């Protein structure tokens, strides 16, 4: 389970969230701009320290204001994929992928590269990549670090419609194969209902609804990916 009890104030904005989500499949987090999606994203990833509350992931406490606990992002095992990929521009694609990976050259490494169709891009520099390619590398880079949870912050919003659809399919496939739970943040509900197993709607810093998404069930794991994930 992903347990979130957060109370955070930033100027006039007040985030007050009390959520328990199953750590399986893809959870959509939707809401207009200013609804608190990004603040929640930052609190979960550990990039922002909430004023009050607690966060735990599969029973592992990540933040607890009463106990003074705040696990740093590097130890949270929560991967992040930003809107524009945000690859390290001074490193090749391969070095980007290896940055958080302990598995360079292993079966898992090759599985992820193959699943995201990156073999021909390994030596390229991020500035030479198209928007879709950048996002594929960013997703792969996060997966290589074997996160327990992957946060995707509007990863397709900058892509054209055709590429958007392909990337969404890819995300769904990668989730089925790796079984890594994902939280997909978006301001466009139509974009993610199809993709998500459950959808949380935020409004003015509060949870307005938690509904079931259109995606059901979980697909088979890739054998190699499953082994590595289970072995950790």
């Amino acid at each position: 389970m992903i347990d979130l009890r957060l109370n955070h104030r930033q100027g006039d904005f007040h985030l007050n969230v009390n959520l328990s989500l199953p750590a399986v499949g893809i959870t959509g987090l939707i809401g207009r701009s200013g609804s608190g999606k990004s603040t929640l994203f930052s609190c979960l990833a550990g990039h922002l320290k909430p004023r009050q509350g607690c966060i735990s992931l599969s029973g592992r406490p990540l933040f607890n204001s009463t106990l003074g606990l705040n696990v740093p992002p590097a130890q949270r095992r929560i991967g992040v994929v930003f809107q524009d990929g945000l690859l390290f521009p001074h490193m090749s694609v391969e070095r980007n992928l290896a940055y958080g990976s302990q598995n360079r050259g292993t079966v898992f490494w090759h599985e992820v590269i193959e699943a995201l169709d990156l073999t021909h891009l390994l030596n390229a520099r991020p500035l030479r990549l198209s928007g879709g390619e950048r996002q594929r590398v960013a997703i792969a880079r996060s997966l290589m670090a074997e996160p327990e949870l992957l946060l995707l912050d509007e990863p397709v919003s900058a892509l054209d419609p055709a590429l958007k659809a392909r990337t969404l399919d890819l995300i769904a496939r990668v989730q089925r194969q790796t079984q890594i739970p994902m939280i997909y943040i978006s301001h466009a509900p139509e974009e993610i209902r199809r993709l998500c197993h459950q959808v949380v709607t935020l409004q003015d810093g509060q949870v307005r609804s938690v509904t079931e998404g259109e995606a059901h069930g979980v697909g088979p794991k890739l054998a190699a990916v499953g082994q590595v994930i289970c072995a950790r």
Partner: protein
Amino acid sequence: MFGLSPTEMSALVLSLRASSLAVLWALPFAIGLGWVLGVKRFPGHGLLNAFVHLPLVLPPVVLGYLLLLLLGRKGLIGGPLYDLLGLRIAFTESAVVIACAVVGFPLMVRAIRQSAEAIDPRLARAARSLGASELRVFFTVTLPLMAPGILTGLTLAFARAVGEFGATITLAGNIPGKTQTLPLALFTVTQSPGGDAAALRLCILSLVLAGGALLASEAIARRTSLQEVPA
């Protein structure tokens, strides 16, 4: 070389040596301060920024005199150094290096701060979320991305140090063969009868050195901006 007298030659060599040493000594501090000023926000940020940039706007002679008060034989720092260790700073080559470092420092910090400000803070966050420690984030992400600013700062500070006059003459004096740098040698020959040819020679040398450093700085800036345009 170029018809330079031994004194002029030694002034040129001293200028190059002192300026190089000055920028190299100042570099780690400038990187640290440039990063702190560019990335961190804290009470007193503006004050620290103003203090760092003070040498840019203070008359160099004032700067030299303040340094003399600090580093002279009876100075706040220079006094104990001389009494306890027998170390003399004022009117030595070390004084030339310090004067050059102080005047070039704000130019370095400024260039580095600007390049630190231009780095998307989410890159560091992405690195942290990939398991990197703060130290690893700094050395593998922040520092390489600040490199263009560091190189620009280095060349600008070097050019400024080569041309340094007021602080140097106040703190280090104008001792031929010991603390006489290129600008001081130029000043000396302009004060001597029949020194026109030597003055012109040293003037051209100064122009070549400063111009070369500026061209290098421009080339670095241009190369960097070209790299930042997505292909």
